[in-house]
């Protein structure tokens, strides 16, 4: 069932984009639908339409854990200057899809291409060097080090100075300067020398985003960046993401549950359900789509998302 559904996703999900997109039917409704043989990956067809190469493309990306298919042949392309929200109920495979792209989990099948380069088998650090930047759902920092040190490590990694064994850190003033610039951008300069484990949750989330900004990747991947943040704190992070959107040569992927966030930021929504691509299109269409509403047992996307 999931298979035929994925087929549907690939066939009808993408070709219409960025034209209004028709959302995909849920398998039970259309499982006897026309047999489609000429499968065109959504990235491919989009490529024809937009005339630009996608920055990131996944082709039939699949991962199985034992008998369970967590991500099921997801083919999708992500373009420069575009913010794509990835939504779906809990367990739909959003974070797993992220893990496949950033390399934390090896794919069972399919490919990941970054600017045309196949990185499916590359290590996590190699993908980072190639331009994938990932922030994590659960704050994932270096808790015993200072805020500045956290950022400096990222800048240092980017400049490839990790294997410098003999020079003192203090001689690398440029690393500190760059780290401080970013701290100022995310309004954490006052906490510069604080140990991360003593930072408030909101500030830790900000630092999580800051690490990604310091990395300056081609593809930004945010996994619920405002999770657990207070109403006062969340806008700072969202503003930062909005700022990143202005950099037209980057692509941003955002896993998010909050509808208002998606509405204000997303250029495009993809819906994952049971690991497969269920819909792909402009936010208004995806949200309004009857098919998706039906797919979510009549409650509509907003209903589902409000639950989680």
């Amino acid at each position, binding site marked *: 069932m999931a298979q035929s559904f994925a087929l549907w996703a690939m066939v009808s999900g993408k070709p219409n984009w960025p034209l209004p997109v028709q959302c995909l039917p849920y398998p039970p409704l259309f499982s006897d639908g026309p047999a489609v043989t000429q499968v065109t990956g959504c990235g491919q067809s989009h490529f024809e339409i937009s005339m630009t190469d996608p920055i990131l493309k996944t082709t039939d990306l699949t991962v199985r854990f034992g008998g369970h298919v967590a991500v099921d042949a997801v083919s999708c392309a992500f373009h420069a200057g575009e913010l794509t929200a990835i939504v779906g109920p809990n367990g739909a495979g959003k974070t797993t899809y992220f893990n496949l792209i950033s390399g934390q989990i090896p794919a069972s099948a399919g490919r990941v291409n970054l600017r045309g380069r196949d990185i499916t088998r590359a290590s996590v650090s190699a993908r980072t060097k190639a331009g994938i930047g990932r922030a994590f759902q659960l704050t994932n920092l270096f808790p015993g080090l200072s805020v500045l040190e956290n950022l400096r490590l990222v800048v240092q990694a980017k400049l490839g100075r990790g294997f410098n*064994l003999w020079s003192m*850190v203090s001689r690398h003033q440029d690393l500190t300067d760059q780290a401080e610039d970013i701290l100022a951008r995310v309004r954490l300069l006052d906490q510069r020398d604080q140990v991360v484990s003593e930072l408030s949750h909101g500030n830790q989330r900000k630092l999580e985003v800051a690490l990604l900004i310091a990395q300056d990747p081609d593809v930004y991947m945010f996994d619920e960046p405002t999770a657990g943040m207070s109403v006062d704190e969340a806008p700072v992070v969202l503003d930062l993401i909005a700022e990143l959107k202005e950099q037209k040569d980057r692509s941003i992927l955002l896993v998010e549950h909050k509808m208002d966030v998606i509405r204000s930021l997303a250029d495009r929504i993809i819906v994952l359900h049971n690991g497969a691509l269920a819909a792909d299109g402009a936010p208004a269409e995806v949200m309004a789509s009857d098919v998706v509403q039906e797919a979510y047992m009549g409650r509509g996307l907003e209903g589902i998302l409000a639950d989680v």
Partner: protein
Amino acid sequence: MIRSLLSGDMPRSLPLALILGCILICLALAPFLFPGVRTVDTAARICIFIVLVASYDLLLGYGGIVSFAHTMFFGIGAYGVALTSAHMGRGFDAIAIGALVGAGFAAALALLIGLFSLRVRAIFFAMITLAVASAVAVLVSQLSGLTGGEDGLTFKTPRELGPAFKFGKETFDGVLFGVKLNGKLLAYYFVFIGALVLFLTLLRVVNSPFGRVLQAIRENDFRAESIGYRVVYYRVAATCLSASVAALAGSLYAVWLRYVGPDTVLSMELMIDILLMVVIGGMGTLYGAMIGATLFVLAQNYLQNLMGAASELVADLPLLPELLSADRWLLWLGVLFILSVYFFPAGVVGRLRGKR
């Protein structure tokens, strides 16, 4: 000047700076401040153990890697010098070659173990080091033709480092501040300067960008990989570096003792001593190695005497003389460790720097 010698890693606490300064001065002037065969021997051991413990701290405190093979690397360095000195004849060239070959061999072995086990998870490294260390210890005691087996090897160091060598007869009449100017004094300073250079080198390494990456890996290896560091390479590099410094410390030890044997340089007991010294001093700060090694070696050498004296003082009271009897020194050493770990969970240095 001091800042760059210490690689910018200042003590950051006045009591700590005073303690470290005191240890440094005492060690630098040990033959003059505490003349005597046993005291100078203790000072030399402290110097060597500071380096050994500091090199272990590079692994455990900075890299978060648990290894049980540190005495093996120490032993490789010691046997390196012993074997070259025994076969090439006494001479500084034999010491230099033995030390370099020992350090190189230790690094190569560490590379091999590291590449096999650190790829997976750091815990496998601990287990494999345990196995390899035991195997090497058995091998050394079995290959008695080469290593002297359980008896170990006694060898000659250059004449200049032996007690028979006298110097400064014309200017100082062979005596300076009541201390005989002989080869043993030179041997002490050979050990002291060697240890100082190695310690400052390690201090340099942990305060370099590389050292920061190791700390990041210790804190969160998952994220370190994700911001673009190939964690396994850094872990392996730290292991090799730490192994070769431990081997060099072993070479210094061999030069000082003019003897190597499985019990002195390869025993598991020694490994546990190193672990305790790191923990007492404070993991993740090389100054902790300095304090831990000093406290431990002093306790090992003098606690027995101190307790003997204490037990005589309370000879008239019931029970106390029994408890304080010099024979019970190991018991009290154990109690001291438990107390120090309980009261200084972050080690002495951590405590002095104000981290809980």
